[in-house]
């Protein structure tokens, strides 16, 4: 272990660091542009990586991987445009904060949380390697299927005031994920004879429409700027506050980072699932949970910390077993093999120095990426105070560019326009776009793992111990608030000397009940 650490340090030369920095800068710039995303950033870096010595090439790719969840925090927060599928949850609280004039604070908190999450992911990678092998190998499609069902079960807690509207939007998203070719039989569903829909509705045009175009319509309709409240603090103060928020909410940061690591370690799930699970987990466990979605910094921290920490987690199955945990990781894995670096046993023995290099690069890349973005966040936040109609043109053009860049088919631009209209209707009549996207993203994975589970085990897959454990844990998490309330009520009843006969205390107890009842009523 120690020899590997020293060898990793030896690989960390000035040349390696420079190439890592190049990867960080390029990936950060690409991640800021909606529609391009992390996979694209890694693909762009590939030609450079192949022309370099192995250590520098891999440092370049790892530098890029480390920050693909960092750059898109800026557009998610300031414009409500998630640059990639992994940045959707950041908009839930980040964009409302920008509207309240706290955009810089939200960006700073998100970036700091991203960096901390990335570092925790790297540390977790070191700690988890010895124990991850049996754990990862014990998870199969049935467990992933139940894990996704668990994420969907939380869908009702995210969204509009009405649970019916929230679930309707979520189920509609889930339903639309079935558009395209059914993988086991090759049947085309809801494609209306359009070839480009055979792959299903692409996520990026859908998100661009739902978030970017719909928000532009709202902005043009309303007039004024994105930030409806002028900032009460200078950008520098907001940056400091945002960074301090991550320390203040250390529990959320740590919890979301650990969630991200665990989800990242599960092949095929990645940051897009981790952000939702970490967000809803924070919503349910935080004392400020009721404020989530209205512009609370904790929501931004929860989402961003989880996304970047998945990188560390996704390296575990990728390097130890050659099973990529995400699409960018799959590309890096392919590049590694092309460069003659084999994952598996060899990675943990002969190439242990390279493994440590990855860990160093993950840490350094996260810090560098956050520093770059933080240095420009104050300037970018000023854009939110520009009149909306002046921003609308560039945002719409970039949206069309992002939608078309997804697959190079003009149908995707039309899809973005269609979902722009849907998004506006959802905003106007309070249907949750958040649950819609959660349903859509998880629906794609749900069917894949369901089909695999049925093929391999039939209905017997429900009897697997992993499935049972995840199901029980999910039920417990959902039931936890009710159990907590019951326990509090019993505890209140069990303290007669203080409570009994005390009008004030009784009122307080009643308040608690009333609040609970009204909250349940909202559902």
């Amino acid at each position, binding site marked *: 272990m120690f020899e590997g650490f020293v060898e990793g340090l030896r690989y960390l030369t000035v040349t390696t660091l420079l190439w890592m920095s190049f990867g960080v800068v390029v990936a950060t710039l690409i991640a800021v542009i909606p529609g*391009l995303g992390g996979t694209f950033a890694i693909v762009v870096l590939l030609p450079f990586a192949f022309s370099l010595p192995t250590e520098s090439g891999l440092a370049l790719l790892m530098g890029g991987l480390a920050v693909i969840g960092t750059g898109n925090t800026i557009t998610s927060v300031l414009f409500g445009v998630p640059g990639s599928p992994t940045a959707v949850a950041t*908009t839930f609280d980040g964009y*409302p904060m920008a*509207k*309240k004039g706290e955009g810089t604070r939200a960006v700073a908190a998100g970036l700091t949380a991203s960096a901390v999450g990335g570092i925790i992911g790297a540390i977790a990678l070191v700690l988890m390697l010895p124990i991850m092998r049996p754990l990862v190998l014990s998870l199969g499609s049935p467990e992933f299927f139940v894990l996704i069902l668990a994420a969907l079960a939380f869908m009702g*807690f*995210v*969204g*509009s*005031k009405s649970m019916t509207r929230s*679930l*309707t939007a979520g*189920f509609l998203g889930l*339903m639309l994920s*079935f558009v395209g070719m059914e993988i*086991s*039989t090759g049947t085309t*569903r*809801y494609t209306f004879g359009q070839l480009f829909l055979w792959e299903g509705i692409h996520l990026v045009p859908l998100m661009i429409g739902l978030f970017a*175009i719909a928000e532009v*319509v709202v902005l*043009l*309709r309303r*007039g*004024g*700027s994105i*930030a*409806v409240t002028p900032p009460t603090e200078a950008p520098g103060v907001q940056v400091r506050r945002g960074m301090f928020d991550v320390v203040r909410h250390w529990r959320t940061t740590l919890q979301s980072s650990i969630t991200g690591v665990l989800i990242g370690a599960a092949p095929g799930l990645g940051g897009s699932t981790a952000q939702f699970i970490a967000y809803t987990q924070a919503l349910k466990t935080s004392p400020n*949970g*009721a*404020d*989530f*979605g*209205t512009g609370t910094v904790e929501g931004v921290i929860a989402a961003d910390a989880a996304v970047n920490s998945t990188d560390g987690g996704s390296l575990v199955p990728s390097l130890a077993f050659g099973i990529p945990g995400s699409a960018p990781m799959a590309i890096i894995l392919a590049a590694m093999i092309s460069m003659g670096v084999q994952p598996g046993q060899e990675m943990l023995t002969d190439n242990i120095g390279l493994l440590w290099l990855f860990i160093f690069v993950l840490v350094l890349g996260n810090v560098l990426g956050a520093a770059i973005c933080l240095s420009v966040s104050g300037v970018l936040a000023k854009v939110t105070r520009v009149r909306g*109609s*002046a921003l609308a*043109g*560039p945002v*719409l*053009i*970039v949206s*069309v*560019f992002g939608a*078309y860049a997804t697959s190079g088919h*003009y149908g995707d*631009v*039309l899809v973005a*326009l269609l979902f722009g209209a849907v998004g506006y*209707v959802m*905003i*106007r*009549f*309070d249907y949750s*776009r*958040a649950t819609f996207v959660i349903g859509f993203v998880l*629906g794609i994975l749900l069917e894949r793992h369901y089909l695999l589970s049925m093929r391999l085990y039939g209905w017997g897959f429900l009897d697997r111990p992993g499935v049972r454990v995840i199901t029980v844990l999910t039920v417990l998490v959902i039931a936890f*608030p*009710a159990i907590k309330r019951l326990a509090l009520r019993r505890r209140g009843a069990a303290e007669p000397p203080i409570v009994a006969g005390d009008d004030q205390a009784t009122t307080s107890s009643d308040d608690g009940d009333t609040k609970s009842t009204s*909250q349940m009523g*909202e559902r």
Partner: protein
Amino acid sequence: MSRISDDEAAPETPSADRSDPLQHEAASPDLGALIAAAGFLIIPLAMVAMAFAFNEEARRLPLVVGVPLVVLATLNLIGTVRRSFGVGAGAPSEVGAENAAASAMSAEQEGLGLPLIFVLLVALVAAVWLFGLIGTSVVFIVLLTRFAAGLGWLRSLVLAIVVAGSLYAFDELLNVPIHGGRLGALLPF
């Protein structure tokens, strides 16, 4: 159980600013909400009906998801009808109320009308399809920033050139596909 709202989350806004067009619309008896709720029912109904034409394997999950969705959407429609006609707790103003804080800065500014925005979007998509993204972006940004936002000609032009130049750079350096347009080949840029 605490619940959160989306970023468009509508806080209670009984005293919504009348000068905010969205707030004003939300306060009227909500035919739009009814149409939206009906739309959210019709789409899944059509999808469920279409699912019966698929083979058994392909229709299983669409039906498992679609049937509860139809039930949910029906409940939603009933709830919307009740709210729209003042039956039950929810008031029409609750439906779709925009962020109350929006009124603070936009109160004195009149936004564009929805039909005009719709025409702009359709015109943009059609123009990009016909003339390509680069050329369209210059014209579209100049027109929007000059006439809708009231920026000067020079600033509008600079902004348009910066955006179009960035897209062009991406196209050239990173080989990102940019729609050239049906008539794009005839244009000098």
